[in-house]
């Protein structure tokens, strides 16, 4: 039967409410917690004295479910973790398996992966801009953001048939080739987006209220950021120049020329500038990817891992055997453990895969960037007004599906 008296009892050693501090529940059902996060705020009037983030309200047991699924089945699971940038999760998961098995991905598949990931990054940052603006009162910004994000989702849908959960990667490449006419649609997207971003910038960047609400709020220095383990735009806003695409290039990122925006004083306003600048860089990458998209296979020819094309099935018996074995039990990986990581809009998204030689991962630990960013919330909100807690939580851009796994 379903248990219902859980999560009621007091948690934490200091759960007895102090007399003079009021304990406020910024609970799971709250408009600006970007999902189901519960923060137990200890308030001295309007000033926050202590914040204990209580997560787990969206814990879906992904790591347990991965152990029950073969590698190919796990791809659809990886979509649902960080549901703002599913293609990036797909690529991360599949990179771990490819690193374990040692499969080379053909260049065309790498560029398709880069295109889908940068599209997801733009869509995710647009959503962040819309919802964080909503929290801080920019009601019209929500509709601007969604107008642009829908363009990116149309591209996802045209390619993979699904707006958000693309599941477009396979171990050793991508599932399908780009439909014809898709690249022109992408080109139209790349041409129209800079104008849309200028709309946003003109509305927000030097808006005095936006400055007042974000500047100097939630400051974290570079050393503190490294100690707290924050990642992504939050880390770069504090001046640490670390982006996985530049530090450890994967999927061919080394032959794209783009800059990594790095902030100076690590406050909410810098994080906003990081994300808007990252969107512009993503558009640059997309343009370069469209310009020199190589032809050739979009999935590896290694039959141990990839399904043979339909045409081959009628001709060679061996292809039928490969097809049958791959479909029925999948492929096996060597014994060992690997860690593969990609740059998600929230930071470094890592997959630690332990394999015991069977066709299912023995242990799949996901290193969620939102979990690490949220951990710094407690330090960021000490002595801050309650209204600024909303701004700080917005600027951390955490996703509870990614954080709770």
């Amino acid at each position, binding site marked *: 039967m379903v248990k219902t008296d859980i*999560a*009621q009892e*007091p948690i934490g050693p200091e759960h007895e*409410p102090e*007399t*003079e501090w*009021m304990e406020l*529940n*910024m*609970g*799971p*059902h*709250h408009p600006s917690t970007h999902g189901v996060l*519960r923060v137990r705020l200890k308030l*001295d*009037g*309007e*000033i926050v004295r202590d914040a204990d983030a209580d997560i787990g309200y969206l814990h879906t047991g992904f790591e347990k479910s991965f152990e029950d699924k073969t590698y190919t089945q796990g791809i659809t699971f990886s979509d649902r973790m960080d549901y703002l940038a599913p293609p990036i999760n797909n690529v991360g998961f599949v990179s771990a398996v490819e690193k374990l098995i040692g499969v080379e991905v053909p260049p065309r598949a790498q560029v398709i992966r880069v295109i889908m990931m940068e599209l997801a990054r733009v869509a995710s940052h647009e959503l962040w801009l819309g919802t964080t603006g909503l929290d801080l009162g920019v009601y019209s910004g929500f509709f601007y953001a969604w107008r642009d994000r829908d363009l990116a989702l149309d591209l996802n849908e045209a390619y993979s048939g699904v707006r958000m959960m693309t599941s477009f990667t396979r171990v050793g490449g991508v599932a399908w080739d780009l439909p014809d006419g898709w690249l022109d649609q992408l080109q139209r997207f790349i041409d129209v987006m800079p104008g849309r971003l200028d709309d946003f910038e003109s509305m927000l960047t030097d808006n005095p209220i936006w400055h007042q609400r974000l500047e100097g709020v939630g400051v974290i220095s570079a050393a503190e950021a490294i100690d707290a383990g924050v990642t992504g735009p939050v880390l770069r806003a504090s001046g640490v120049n670390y982006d996985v695409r530049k530090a450890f290039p994967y999927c061919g990122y080394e032959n794209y020329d783009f800059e990594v925006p790095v902030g100076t004083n690590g406050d909410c306003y810098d994080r906003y500038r990081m994300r808007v600048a990252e969107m512009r860089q993503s558009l640059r990458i997309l343009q370069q990817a469209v310009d020199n998209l190589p032809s050739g296979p979009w999935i590896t020819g290694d039959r141990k891992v990839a399904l043979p094309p339909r045409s081959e099935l009628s001709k060679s018996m061996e292809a039928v055997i490969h097809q049958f074995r791959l479909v029925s039990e999948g492929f096996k990986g060597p014994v060992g453990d690997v860690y593969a990581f990609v740059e998600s809009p929230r930071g470094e998204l890592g997959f630690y895969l332990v394999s015991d030689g069977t066709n299912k991962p023995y242990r799949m630990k996901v290193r969620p960037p939102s979990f690490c960013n949220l951990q710094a919330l407690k330090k960021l909100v000490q002595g801050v*007004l309650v209204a600024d807690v909303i701004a700080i939580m917005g600027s951390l851009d955490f996703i509870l599906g990614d954080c709770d796994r």
Partner: protein
Amino acid sequence: MLSDYLPLLIFLAAVFVFGLIALFLPPWLAGSRPTQAKDLPYESGIVPRTSARRRFAVSFYLTAMLFIIFDVEAIFIYPWAVILHALRWFGVIEMAVFVAILLVALIYVWGKGALEWGS
């Protein structure tokens, strides 16, 4: 003489009747189904254990007082604005004096730092 006030009385009566209607008709029509959960305070979805009645900081009281002062000042301006045309210059000067007094109060409060939130 009394008849001069008749429209005012009718207006007051109408207000009173409308107030009664608005107060009692909807609950009578909709019917109310109180349940134990509905009476609990809404704590963002968490079932509250302690009562929500807590002592809170004095700064709230201070801010409330300041608001009332300047709000009442705004209320006085409405009737003045209605008959300003009749008052002509005398009305303007009068209101300027009134606002100046409260301006001094505002500058004092601002200087004291009571507007910034601080316990």
